[in-house]
């Protein structure tokens, strides 16, 4: 039995919205980065599902690039966290309001 494509898209949409809510509600910088990873993974599920159903591997190659960009983003984000923690001794984004209007 073939799983309908819409099931994969619904799972991906659910995962994306969970990541979005995580970015909006959490105060810990690290957990916000985790939520971004969740959103990137949701995009990957979509890409791979459509590539599998359309019998073309373009989507899989694109998801490979997405994974690479996630790796770069993790390195930069963690460097920013380390610098912030060294200066302010906090990872709470509510206390980092220097650039706020």
């Amino acid at each position, binding site marked *: 039995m073939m799983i309908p494509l819409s099931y994969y898209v619904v799972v991906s949409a659910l995962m994306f919205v969970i990541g979005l809510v995580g970015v909006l509600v959490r105060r810990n910088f690290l957990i916000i980065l985790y939520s971004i*990873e969740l959103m990137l993974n949701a995009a990957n599920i979509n890409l791979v599902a459509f590539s599998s159903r359309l019998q073309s591997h373009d989507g899989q190659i694109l998801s490979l690039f997405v994974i690479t960009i996630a790796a770069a983003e993790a390195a930069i984000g963690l*460097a920013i*966290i380390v610098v912030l923690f060294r200066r302010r001794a906090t990872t709470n984004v509510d206390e980092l309001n220097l650039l706020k209007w």
Partner: protein
Amino acid sequence: MTQSLFFFYFAGVTVLSSILTIGLRNPIHSTVALLSALLHVAGIFILLHAEFIAAIQIIIYAGAILVLYLFVLMLLNQKETETIVNRQYHLALFFGAVIFCEILLALFQSDFLQSNFLNVETPVLKATAGIAYNNTASIGVALFTDYILQFEIVGVLLLGGIVGALVLAKQTPTR
């Protein structure tokens, strides 16, 4: 039958682990939940016959990125806070639900779920007919022929990431 059983297992645990990732108080527990979510996403990839992406997902995400996160998590000695969420979390939950409903609405009103969309004979399939579809070799061939420019650009991006992380995290000498 077995396939749908596996699909519902992987999908359910993925969504549950995602909720736990953003809901747990202890960041270490969040990391373990994120690991579980990533591994089950790899299971979904295997169900979609994307074995190479599943292996990359496990090696790079679960193996490299998550270990990097854990290292930094252990490095920072975070103090416990009594509240883990912002003040405006009601608003965020509400708008999250609205956006989810909007995605579902757009999904089920569009025509890509119709069978004629999915059974369309794509020209890509004919172009790669000489190579066995969907194994590591065919992805590799496409990566080094059609996508060579993008591949190089991503390599430069990774180099920029390395340099940026080094410049940011470099210990400045105390004055």
